[in-house]
């Protein structure tokens, strides 16, 4: 069976940065026909409350993502090699955001 046709335009993922220098964090998604309208919708939906320094939108279709079936080959080999984790290093005092 065909999926119901989406008449709301393309789907875009929204990333919001709370202050300069911080990472853009995924906030959610919006529908819009093009980049400019997606940016405006993202602003109205996710950036109207609270402090925001910058917003990114990216078309959802442009994102390559792993599938659940990739889990074993992509991620599991790292589980049992604790020496790869950075916890053994001391973070110098004064360094934040790590």
């Amino acid at each position, binding site marked *: 069976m065909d999926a119901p046709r989406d008449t*709301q335009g393309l789907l875009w993922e929204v990333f919001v940065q709370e202050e300069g220098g911080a990472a853009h964090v995924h906030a959610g998604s*919006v*529908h819009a026909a093009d980049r*400019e*309208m997606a940016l*405006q*919708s993202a602003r109205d*939906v996710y950036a109207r409350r609270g402090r925001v320094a910058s917003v990114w939108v990216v078309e959802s279709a442009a994102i390559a993502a792993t599938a659940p079936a990739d889990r074993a080959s992509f991620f599991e080999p790292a589980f049992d090699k604790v020496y790869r984790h950075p916890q053994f290093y001391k973070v110098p005092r004064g360094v934040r955001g790590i």
Partner: protein
Amino acid sequence: MAGRDPLAADLAEYCLRLGDDRLVLGHRLSEWCGHAPVLEEELALGNVALDLLDQASLLLEQSARLGGVARSADELAFFREVTGFRNLLLVEQPNGDFAMTIARQYLFDVFDVHLSVALQASADSALASLCERIGKEAAYHLRHSREWMLRLGDGTEESHGRMQRALDELWAFTAEPFEADELTRRLIEARVVVDPQALREPWCEQVRATLAEAGLDAPEASQPMQSGGRRGRHGEALGRMLSEMQSVARAFPGASW
């Protein structure tokens, strides 16, 4: 008011005019709640409406302070008759279809940006700082409405036709924002406000550029133009809008929520 500074009375009336523009347009936009074409646009229109209502309440409070007649912004909003409203006829026009709402918004937003920038140089520091705030919001409102003008004008045959009809219908209301009456002239003399006629050319230039980009025809400039809103002469649609907007406050006077 005996002994009251005559300039304060003029400025009170001027703030009432600007406040009413925002109150009426903000309420019109809020009528889209639950009816907008998509969720994102519903939120966008609601955000613009909230900006405008906030501006309205600041301007009406300022008007009440200066005029000393009514006591609060709420009294001005909810207990005046339609003939007491001083808004432009443009902003009271019914929502119509989405093209009509966007065209109305765009024509107002361009005016609002020019006006609020110019008024930041006002000799009245309260008005100047209010307009600094309004200017930021207006710039975003314009970005939103302009992008829709381009997309609807340069979209499908259907959207183009609807947008052209909306423009043709609303054009008659686009001279009124630039009119200056006796009161405005006294305030211009005192350097409290700017001559609105000076904003007309930049407005026309900007609107015509957008219409050209959107593939829309600028309506005939020589057609008869409507005015009267600043003197309380409104179309019947405003009366209907106010009767709904004011009904709760009038049914429960003094109620708070």
